[in-house]
């Protein structure tokens, strides 16, 4: 008690007038990592309310039927701000039926949460962020399931990723719903994944809102995606991805981007005030062309996807999107000019003066498939553009009905 009394005058003398209180964190590093190793099948690890600081990656491997539960995304905070070792914040690998819910992960050196090769994964009410906001030095992915099956991500928040906020890669049977992504380069990204549903999400103030990508050279190719009832707005953030990464080629002001995938249906989305393009449909040929001359890869953290100009040597890869069905979405754009710092933005400004496109298709022909099944029904007001990118935009055409056809109805089962 005597010690306690001693303290007070010191505080008064030295700190009067200052209002910057230090943020006090607890450490549970050893005990939590130990629990992650010793946890038994069927157990729940409770993370009590509190702010916890870590210096190394946390890892759980080869476990089944485990729940890791916090006291709420604003109550249980795991911060990796002091991380000196390991690339991820929390890494969960192998195993099955893992549920992570009700906590926050912040400021890992690489990805905040990576889940690899898990069958049956639920991420529920997880907030994953780089607390200082968008920066190139931030980790690549906020929520990153890869090589997983049966993935449910719901009511999560992703913020500040220098690549993608909610990123599902090389996974099967995925639902991303009722989540928010903002201040990332890409808000939500599905990459080389199959049977994916993305709905009821809000993606805003990213560089690009929602991306569905299929890239060469990976363990599997993606297809069969439904994107519906999302609110994708104001994705006009400058692109802060490190150069050479594939998302570095996303122009600011992109609502949705569909790259080289097939069997995709998109409807009921509100796509509002994304200044450059509401929805882009492009082939990998265009990405490669835009990146020609760029350094292929640069040193930075993590294993993010980079532009691979050798994609033509991947004989199993189809760089051209097909079977794309876009209908009954709401497009609005109160911006008169696209992002002019980007070649695509300049092109739109020139070719569709003061009317950036709602939907733009690169128009590059697939030599092996003449009927691509790209069907767009968005009414007569929509600004629908065919870039004819392969021919120096010579026959660029704007016409709301130029892709009017009966599109695929994507079924997941």
């Amino acid at each position, binding site marked *: 008690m005597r*010690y306690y009394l001693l303290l007070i005058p010191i505080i008064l003398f030295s700190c009067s007038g200052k209002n910057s209180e*230090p943020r006090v964190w607890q*450490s549970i590093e050893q005990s939590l990592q130990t629990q992650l190793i010793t946890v038994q099948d069927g157990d729940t690890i409770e993370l009590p309310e509190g702010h916890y600081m870590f210096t190394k990656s946390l890892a759980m491997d080869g476990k089944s039927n485990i729940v890791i539960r916090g006291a709420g995304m604003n109550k249980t905070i795991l911060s990796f701000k002091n991380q000196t070792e390991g690339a991820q914040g929390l890494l969960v690998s192998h195993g099955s039926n893992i549920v992570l819910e009700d906590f926050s992960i912040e400021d890992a050196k690489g990805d905040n949460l990576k889940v690899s090769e898990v069958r049956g994964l639920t991420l529920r009410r997880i907030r994953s962020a780089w607390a200082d906001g968008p920066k190139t030095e931030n980790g690549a992915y906020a929520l990153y399931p890869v090589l997983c099956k049966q993935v449910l991500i719901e009511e999560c928040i992703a913020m500040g990723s220098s690549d993608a906020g909610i990123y599902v890669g090389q996974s099967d049977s995925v639902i991303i719903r009722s989540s928010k992504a903002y201040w990332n380069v890409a808000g939500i990204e599905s990459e080389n994944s199959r049977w994916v549903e993305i709905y009821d999400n809000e993606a805003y103030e990213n560089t690009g809102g929602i991306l569905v990508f299929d890239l060469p050279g990976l363990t599997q190719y993606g297809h069969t995606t439904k994107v519906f009832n999302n609110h994708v707005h104001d994705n006009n953030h400058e692109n802060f991805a490190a150069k050479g990464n594939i998302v570095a080629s996303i122009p600011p002001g992109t609502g949705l981007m569909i790259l080289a995938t097939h069997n995709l249906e998109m409807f009921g989305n509100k796509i509002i005030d994304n200044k450059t393009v509401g929805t882009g449909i492009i082939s990998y040929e265009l990405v490669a062309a835009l990146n020609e001359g760029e350094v292929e890869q640069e040193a930075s953290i993590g294993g993010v996807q980079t532009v691979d100009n050798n994609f033509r040597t991947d004989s199993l890869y189809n760089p051209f999107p097909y079977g794309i069905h876009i209908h009954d979405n709401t497009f609005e754009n109160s911006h008169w000019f696209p992002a002019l710092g980007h070649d695509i933005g300049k092109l739109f400004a020139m070719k569709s003066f003061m009317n950036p496109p709602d939907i733009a298709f690169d128009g590059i022909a697939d030599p092996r498939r003449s009927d691509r099944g790209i069907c767009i029904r968005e009414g007569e007001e929509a600004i629908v553009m065919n870039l004819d990118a392969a021919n120096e935009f010579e026959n660029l055409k704007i016409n709301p009905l130029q892709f009017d056809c009966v599109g695929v109805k994507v079924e997941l089962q």
Partner: protein
Amino acid sequence: MRSVFLAGLALIVVACGKPKQEIVVLPEKEIEIDLSQVGRQKLSDYNFFEGPLNKLRPVEGVIPYGLNSSLFTDYAYKQRFVKIPAGQQADFSANDVMEFPEGTILIKNFYYPADFNKPTESINILETRLLIKENNEWKTLPYIWNDEQTEAYLNVAGKTIDISWKHFDGELRQIKYSVPNMNQCKGCHLRGDKVMPIGPTARQLNGDYSYADGKQNQLTYWQSHQVLKNLPVLNQVSRLASYEDKSFSVNERTRAWLEINCAHCHRDDGPAKNSGLFLLASEDNPSRLGVGKAPVAAGKGSGGLMYGIVPGKPDESILQFRIESVHPGIMMPELGRSVTHEEGVALVRQWILEMKPM
């Protein structure tokens, strides 16, 4: 009460030192966690050693051994032992780790002498890792030594330890030594989906060891002590060079260095098989060894370079770039070091420099 006082004082100092919001991390509370399901709590529980534990004097049946070429782990010294259950024998394997019988324990101690030029004096043992063969599977158990050097305790979560020593050149070196957590053991020891030892292969053991009763080839010593069976005549057993022994060629030394530092993953049944880079000393296909090979899944690790190895040009070789790096997302190997192995990377550099263009 004292601890409350100290914590409070720290807060004041940082709060008032800088205007920016500071991070204060309170020390972790010591919590007893029951690890009895995992393994024995103390190293002394195994009765491997007699006398003071930190002298590491093995009891009868615990055999010290060494490897011709040892994995680099931040310049740590290592003392290895094997305990094979009495009456049992390991079966000789020509190209892989010996077939050890059920109940075998491999014991590996990591330590730093205060002065590397006096390697037997003032030794600080940091950790002891055990590989135990139980139910035909290898189990990994890490033990961390106390400051008093009287005991090592089972610790599955890993730890960072500040360590300093006087290096060979007389300079003081300081690093944060990282004891891996139990999950990380698999990062190196996984073969297919099974944990395996890495070191005790025929070609690593085929060399002399200075036993208490004199110097002898380890394989013949094991055979004469009846813990190894089916050993062929020695001149038919392959032998890995010691990368520190300059009587071997640069090629032999480099291939040995690459094998022990890289090939636990970079092999046909290792975790890095997807990279298409294979670094066992027995690999004789230049392309699989990285010569003129484009990266597959290197990501940023390629450093913008085109090929694994460009003969004559170490600075254009991804392999050289990654073994020199200390960036967690780039460096190779991924685990087990925080500094660069200067002698090792110099050796690889010389090897690539001297390599004839294809």
